[in-house]
Every structure is written in structure tokens, then in C-alpha cells.
């Protein structure tokens, strides 16, 4: 390497560090330190009510999986919820996108309507639905043929699961619909027209042409619904508080309870947080694996 080249690369290095410094500084303080110390504390019995702590090895993790029924129940519930939201949200969003795309003049009107719920924060959505579940549905159920609405929407553990799901769908479907609509618009009309001329019916056109063409949107939406579904917190917090009992307590709420509502065992709470992290990581890895495979195929 010549002298001038060396000098230039040194200069490049200087500017690289200079320009990335602010981002790296924030990264270090608000991401790197929290995640590394969370890993570290997850192996201790650190507690805010005691001045010192000691290493307990894998004890926290062992306790979580052998004795902590609340956490394993929460994990199971969250996975169930994630699967439901993944399937339903994608079907509804894709369905809405397809329906809205059939419109010409009223397209933007319907898009506005369906996307509007997403503008409301999850806390506000949950409070609105609290009102719907506890007041409006009581009255709706008195109308003819609508007796079905007479449910203990927030009090029955089985029904409460669906109540939470409904709020999540109501709030989130519009967002995914936007992504699907963008993908649908990029499908060239000429291809579907050609298939139509070839005599392919609507359903065949959908499965053979449209869906493969928007595969990237499907994978993205799948990823987003899985990740967001697993992280659900706000809706449960405000709608049922995890109740009745702990019947709707999701993982994020369980960690929150351990860390902030009975702040006795920070070390233990961190161990739970790390398991949460591991699951998210797993979902992401599987997702990227699947995406890569599909990219190769297409």
C-alpha cells in the first residue's frame, strides 16, 4: 500500500468514526448496556430491597421452567395468541386489501376507513372497547337475534382471549392492509388480464398469480404480526389487566409484573426477559430462513 493510499484510508476511518459516533454513543448507552446488564443480572439474585446480590448460576432459568407456572402459562397463552393473530390478521388484511383494490372511485374512502383505527393508540383502542364490551354489547344483546352478544367479555377467561384478539385485529389490520395494497398495486395488470383471457377464474388467478407476486409482502406481514403478536402488552394491560386472575396474562405483562409490580426479584425478572428475547430471536431467525428460501425459489 502506498503512502497516499494509507493516508486516505486513515482519513476514511476517521470520518467513519466521526459520523457514526453519535449513533454509536446512543446505541451503547440505551441498547448495549441494558442488554448486556440484563444478561448479566439474569444469573444473579439481584433485588432492590437488598444492598448486595450474588451469582446463582442458572437457578433463575431452572426455576422459571420448573416452578413458575405463571410464566409458562403466560408463554403458552402468548404463543396461542400469536398464532391466532398471525393467521387472522393476515387473512383479514389481505382480504380487505383485495376488496378495496376492486374499487375505483371509492378506493381511497375505504382505505381511510379501514386504516383509521390504526391511528388510535392501543391504550385508547382498549379503553374504547372496554366501553363497548361492558356497556354497548349489553344493550346490543337485548336486540332481536343478537343475544349472542350477552357474554362476559372481560370476565370469562375463554371469552376474554377473544376480546383481546378483537381489539388487536381492529387496531392492527389496517396497517397490514396498507402493506398488502402497496404490493397488489405493483402487480402488473397485464398479467392478470392475460390470465383472465386464458380463462382462469378469480380464485385461480388469486392463488396462481396474485399471491406469488406479492409473496414478499406476505412474508413481511407474517413477520410483523408474529413479532408484534408475541410482544402484546398494551391491550391486555388496559383491557383485562391480565385477568381474571392471570387467565390472560401474556409474557410481557408477566415480566412487567415481576419487575415493577412486585419489585422483589430484578435478577429473576431479567431471566424472564432473556427468555422473551430468545423467543423473538427464534421467530426472526426462522423468518429470515424462510424468506431466503423463498427468494431463491422465486
Amino acid at each position, binding site marked *: 500500500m502506498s503512502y497516499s493510499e494509507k493516508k486516505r484510508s486513515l482519513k476514511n476511518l476517521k470520518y467513519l468514526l466521526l459520523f457514526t459516533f453519535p449513533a454509536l454513543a446512543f446505541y451503547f448507552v440505551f441498547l448495549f448496556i441494558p442488554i448486556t446488564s440484563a444478561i448479566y443480572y439474569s444469573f444473579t439474585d439481584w433485588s432492590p430491597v437488598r444492598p448486595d446480590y450474588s451469582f446463582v448460576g442458572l437457578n433463575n432459568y431452572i426455576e422459571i421452567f420448573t416452578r413458575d407456572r405463571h410464566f409458562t402459562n403466560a408463554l403458552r397463552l402468548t404463543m396461542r395468541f400469536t398464532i391466532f393473530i398471525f393467521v387472522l390478521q393476515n387473512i383479514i388484511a389481505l382480504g380487505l386489501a383485495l376488496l378495496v383494490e*376492486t374499487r375505483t372511485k371509492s378506493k381511497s374512502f375505504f382505505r381511510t376507513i379501514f386504516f383509521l383505527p390504526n391511528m388510535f393508540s392501543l391504550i385508547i383502542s382498549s379503553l374504547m372497547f372496554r366501553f363497548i364490551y361492558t356497556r354497548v354489547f349489553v344493550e346490543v344483546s337485548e336486540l332481536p337475534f343478537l343475544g349472542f352478544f350477552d357474554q362476559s367479555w372481560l370476565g370469562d377467561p375463554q371469552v376474554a382471549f377473544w376480546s383481546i384478539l378483537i381489539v388487536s385485529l381492529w387496531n392492527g389490520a389496517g396497517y397490514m392492509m396498507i402493506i398488502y395494497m402497496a404490493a397488489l398495486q405493483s402487480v402488473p395488470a397485464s398479467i392478470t388480464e392475460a390470465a383472465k383471457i386464458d380463462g382462469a377464474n378469480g380464485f385461480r388467478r388469486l392463488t396462481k398469480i396474485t399471491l406469488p407476486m406479492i409473496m414478499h409482502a406476505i412474508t413481511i406481514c407474517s413477520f410483523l404480526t408474529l413479532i408484534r403478536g408475541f410482544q402484546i402488552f398494551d391491550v391486555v394491560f388496559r383491557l383485562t389487566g391480565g385477568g381474571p386472575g392471570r387467565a390472560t396474562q401474556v409474557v410481557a405483562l408477566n415480566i412487567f409484573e415481576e419487575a415493577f409490580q412486585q419489585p422483589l426479584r430484578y435478577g429473576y425478572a431479567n431471566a424472564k426477559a432473556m427468555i422473551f428475547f430468545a423467543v423473538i430471536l427464534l421467530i426472526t431467525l426462522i423468518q429470515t430462513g424462510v424468506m431466503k428460501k423463498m427468494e431463491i425459489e422465486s
Partner: protein
Amino acid sequence: MKSKNMINVCCLFFLAIFGFIAFFPIYMAVLNSFKTQGEMFTSVLALPNEWTLQNYVDTIQRMDIFRNIWNTVIVTLVGQTGIVICASLAGWRLSRTSGKLSSFIFILFLSSMLIPFNAIMVTLAQVASTLNLADSLIGLGLIYTGLGTSMALFLYHGFVKTVPRELEESARIDGCGEFQIFFKIVFPLLKPITATILILNSLWIWNDFLLPMIMLSNVNNQTLILAINRFFGEFTTDWPRVLSGLIMTSIPVVIFYVLFQKNIVAGIAEGAIK
């Protein structure tokens, strides 16, 4: 032709049903916020005999709503400024530099996007208190900078690749310094992606709940979402008043939506596909 009409009617029918579902809760909330409590008890579904604004008047007095809006604006402003500055500087430079170090730093940021907030909330609260950032609006904004930079950096990094290098090169030959090049030439070219980032982050920060709940405890520091959550706790039995609070809290976002609908929609599609 007949079957085509049938399909058309079917489509409209489903659209109407879903439109009803999407709009019904909002309609109910708005409707009942204009009723007195007595009237809501007689019927939730019916139109009020007498429209009252009393709930809104009470809520404005009780909730200190303008202060809460201002607080949220401060947090959003600090967070956005931090994110745009940090991410654009780093994203551009990382995209323009090849080499192991550059890709290492980029992967560092990329991998941090895997960290879910819930996994670090306990220790993040600790870090914030050590740095005296707990219960401070600016502190919260800085935390948002830390949490939001990675995603923005990723978007900038991708966008920079579509921006031709030639302009920068010729400026360099003209003797411009690197910072000058960035501010004078590059940053203006990044405008479209900056707009996308600002919109996505506004929605995120404005509607976020868990992080502010952990960080802010002083009543004077409440963001809008915290304030409405609290307001609900104080007036659980007075639904019309709570609903008026919900409506007022949502007004800023709905205005934002009406003004920027096109950009929001484009931003979401863009942010997702990258």
C-alpha cells in the same frame, strides 16, 4: 355480465360490513361522550336527546390536556431530532464506506433491531435513573433516540445506495469538507426518506405507552397516553367523561392522519418493504 354484478355487490356488501366494524367503536365513543351520565344509562345506542359539552369542559379542566400535549410534543421533538441526526450521519457514511469495520458497525445496528423492548425494560429503567434521565421529558426523548436510531439508520443506509455518488465526488474535488458535503449536498437529497422516518417515528412515539409509563411518574410530566390512562383510573364509573377524554386525546393524531394520510400510507409501505 350478471355474475360480475353479483361479485361486485358481494364485494360492496363485505366492504360495508367491515367498514361498519371499523367505525362502530369510534362512533359509539363519540356519541356517548356527548351524553349526560343519566342519558347514557337509559340508552347507549340511541342519539342523545340533548347534546351536552359538559363532559369536554370537565375533562379539559381535570386532565390538563394542553400540558400533556406539550409534554408529548417535547418528547417527540427531542426523539425525532436525535434519531434523524444520528441515523442520517451514520447511515450515509456507512453506506459510502466499504470494508470490514463499516459492515461490522452496520451489522451491530442491524442486530439491535432484534432486541424487543420488553427484554431490556428493567435494565433500561436502571440506566435512565443512573443518568438522571428518569422522570424527564428530554431524558425520555433521548431514550427514544437510542431505541429508534437503528431502524432509521437501516432506512437511510438503503436509501443512500439509490443516491448517485457523483455529486459528492465532484464536491470533494472542489475542496468541500466532509461535513459540508453532508449538509449541503447529501442531507437535502435524503429528504424523502427523512419524511418517511419522521412519520413512522411520530406515530410510534406519540402512541407509545409502556416506556413512558416506566420512565415518567411526576404528574406534570405525563404524556397524552399516560394522562388518559390515569384519567380512566380516576373516573372509571363516569363513562361519558372518560370517552370525552379519549376523543380529545385522539384529535391530534386524527388531524395528523387527515393532513398526511398519503405520506403515512406511503411511509408504512416503504418502511415495511425495506
